[in-house]
């Protein structure tokens, strides 16, 4: 029983779904950021899988870039989180930030 690419893709999909659910479910901003990281990794996994299958390195280049972007995103994300928490008392959650309410 050989491991075919589809398995990888299935794992990637599952990973992505769990990440997505995590973003929706958790109120803690940091956990949300982590879940986003999960989703990004799921994407990377698919990229790599297809890079290998289609014998095209572009997939890997994409992953390379995604990594960089992810890093930048985390940096800024966390900075925002710090800024928010500086304003509020402990225990602030994603729901407190709703100034843009219509």
């Amino acid at each position, binding site marked *: 029983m050989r*491991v075919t690419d589809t398995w990888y893709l299935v794992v990637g999909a599952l990973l992505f779904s769990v990440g997505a659910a995590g973003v929706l479910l958790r109120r803690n901003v940091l*956990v949300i950021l982590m879940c986003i990281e999960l989703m990004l990794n799921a994407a990377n996994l698919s990229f790599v899988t297809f890079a290998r299958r289609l014998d095209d390195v572009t997939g890997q280049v994409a992953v390379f870039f995604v990594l960089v972007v992810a890093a930048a995103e985390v*940096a800024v994300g966390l*900075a925002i989180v*710090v*800024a928010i928490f500086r304003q509020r008392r*402990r225990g602030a959650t994603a729901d407190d930030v709703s100034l843009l309410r219509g």
Partner: protein
Amino acid sequence: MVELVLFVLAAAVTLGGALGVIIARNPVHAALHLVAVLVAVAVFFVMQQAPLLAAVQVIVYASAVVVLFLFVIMLLGIDRRESLTEPLRHQRPLAIAVAVALTIEVAVLAGHTWTTGARTQQGTLSGGAVEVLAENVFTRYLWPFEVLAVLLVVAVVGGVTLARHSGEPAGADDLGEGRAAPEPGEVPGP
């Protein structure tokens, strides 16, 4: 045969870790689960002949990013158990439903030729993965590479300004120095 065992192990770690991230009450536990997931994904990269990416993944992601997370958690003092209550109505059931639907749809589509047009079949990358990768990054994709450099600079500057200027009067450069030691978990606000 080894590959199958390795794949199953890594998959189990990945999915278990992911579930752990979203279930863990304590953000620190979540962060640790995240590390597990990242390492498992690195393993996958290696199995998919992307050794450099695996390395980068581990160096950049697994360590630097997660450490940053932990650092911020500790900084903000929210490293304790949280209640998992859900104030938004219908948020939880809807979220689960959407996630499940998403998985099913991807599974259906994956089995179909529609997305890629090419049937699943084996194939290895010609030559060493790293040389080919490097060559591509510095030739065809040089321009995006440079843009990324700029992006990183922006991220850094953004991070610094956001964290520092929000609410802090100029001059007080670090957290709460010269005031009574903040009781645990208390963030010195304005």
